[in-house]
């Protein structure tokens, strides 16, 4: 089941009243365990698309399948209890404590009190909030970042296979946002949920997504692919414009440093003595190359050297990767 399809949208259209469609004939497949980011400008139907997955919005035409089942045939309440749902901070229940917010779904599912309590503590620890300190606090006694963490904990409470996130890191300052994004990446690496995340921020999309679905105004799919593909080979002028200036700089963040090892240099350490770990991205290697007067940095895995990276090898890796994305694009 490694690449089983978890969520499948088939020619989904949503029209409000007699106006133009909010989402028009959208088809999209999300594999189990991947993070699919719906990204696009406002009015591109990202949130509407997300809400059609948990039936907060019913499609005008087309089908939505989750785990192979057409959601139209599943009881909406039952469907939603099987999916985590994270929205901006307003989504916390202001009259309930943090613990009761997190325990909402388990209580709806009829878990006994002790089990709910244990689960709440476990989740608060998972998102980095000390249960003894925060369990009884009210949402208005938390900072924006803490509220977002509670929102994520609440969505994870019943351990659903699917997580729907609508601008989950929208309402916090850039520093906190960055930290929450890093925490999300670490959490997702451990949990491997199927995540559909909505954002209008292309940088956030590139950072968090295994795959991006770029939506254009009017709710049409402009491009679907990995962040590296979208950045290297925008499918249209719209996508190129949306990705914006600095696409190549953004690509540095999504290509692994091991892709850019200088084949001529061999596996030995470079005498300049600067190194980056093998799991780093090209962004970190470039940073190291530009920050110090060195001509190459060594890529290390533990204590073992894998080879060296130079600005020239980074340049050719980016070019190679763009060409690869192009071939892949043509195959489709």
């Amino acid at each position: 089941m490694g690449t089983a399809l978890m969520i499948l949208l088939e020619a989904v259209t949503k029209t409000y009243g007699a106006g133009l469609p909010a989402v028009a004939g959208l088809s999209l497949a999300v594999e189990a365990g991947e993070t699919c980011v719906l990204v696009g400008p406002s009015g591109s139907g990202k949130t509407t698309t997300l809400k059609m997955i948990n039936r907060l919005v019913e499609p005008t035409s087309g089908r939505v399948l989750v785990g192979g089942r057409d959601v139209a045939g599943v009881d909406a309440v039952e469907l939603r209890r099987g999916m985590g749902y994270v929205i901006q901070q307003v989504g916390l229940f202001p009259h309930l404590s943090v613990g009761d917010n997190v325990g909402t779904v388990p209580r709806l599912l009829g878990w006994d009190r002790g089990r709910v309590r244990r689960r709440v503590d476990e989740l608060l620890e998972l998102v980095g909030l000390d249960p003894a300190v925060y369990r009884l606090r009210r949402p208005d006694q938390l900072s924006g970042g803490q509220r977002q963490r509670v929102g994520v904990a609440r969505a994870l409470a019943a351990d659903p296979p699917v997580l729907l996130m609508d601008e989950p890191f929208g309402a916090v300052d850039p520093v906190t946002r960055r930290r929450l994004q890093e925490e999300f990446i670490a959490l997702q690496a451990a949990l491997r949920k199927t995540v559909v995340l909505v954002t209008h921020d292309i940088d956030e999309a590139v950072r968090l997504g295994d795959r991006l679905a770029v939506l254009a105004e009017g709710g049409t799919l402009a491009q679907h692919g990995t962040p590296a593909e979208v950045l290297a080979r925008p499918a249209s002028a719209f996508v190129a414009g949306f990705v914006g200036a600095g696409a190549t700089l953004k690509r540095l963040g999504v290509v692994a440093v091991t892709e850019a090892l200088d084949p001529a240099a061999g596996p030995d350490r470079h005498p300049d003595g600067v190194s980056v770990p093998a799991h780093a991205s090209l962004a970190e290697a470039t940073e190291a190359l530009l920050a110090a007067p060195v001509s190459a940095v060594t890529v290390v895995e533990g204590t073992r050297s894998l080879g060296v990276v130079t600005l020239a090898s980074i340049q050719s890796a980016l070019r190679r990767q763009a060409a690869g994305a192009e071939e892949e694009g043509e195959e489709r």
Partner: protein
Amino acid sequence: MRRRWLVATPVLLVAAAWLVVAWGRQGATGPAEAAALATADRGAEHVTLSLVSSVLAVAVALPAGVVVTRPRWRRLRGPALFVANLGQTVPTVAFLALMFTVTGLGWRTAVLALWAYSLLPVLRNTVAGLSGVDPAVVEAARGVGMSPGEVLARVELPLARPVIVAGVRTAVVVNVGTAALASFVGAGGLGDVIQIGINNQRDRILVVGAALTALLALAADWAVAALDAVARRQPYEAWRARRASSSAP
């Protein structure tokens, strides 16, 4: 501070009522006047009138407010508020007179009139309170998998509660004051004391009846607030808070 007032208020009110009655008795000039000042019975009638009509008003207006704020029944909202407004725009005495032609003299007529009168504040505040709940919170509740009934019971009503309770307090206070007019349809209450004072030109008796009515209105307001305070306490939460603080190192 608020808790201290919750305890002090009834003590002060009872003391004030006792002083008022004692002052009235002191000036009584004969057995007839002493009988007119048998305020305990009149007070009990007054409480029953207000209580029964208030409970009935809440029992009708609260569910009605919930119904007309559901998306499916939203179109009934205007008509419902119109009917409730109508009940309140007609002057009380006129309303009593109208009711009297249908249901005759007595307790039933008075309760019916008071009930119609207190529908509006409860209905209006229930609608306002429920409409004022942040739609994003309601959507979050639906999104995590609450059924419509669970959204109402666990999210909407708790969040609308302060506004709804304010409406009930208004209704009850107005009701206690208006119940003084029940005397006109022979339903008793403290209005009788006021009437005797007016008819016999005995200001002292009139003042006793009016003062007791006012004190009763304050007591009713306190009673609703106290009920709300008791109901708002979350025993489970409190227990957990105590446990958490006592187990802390």
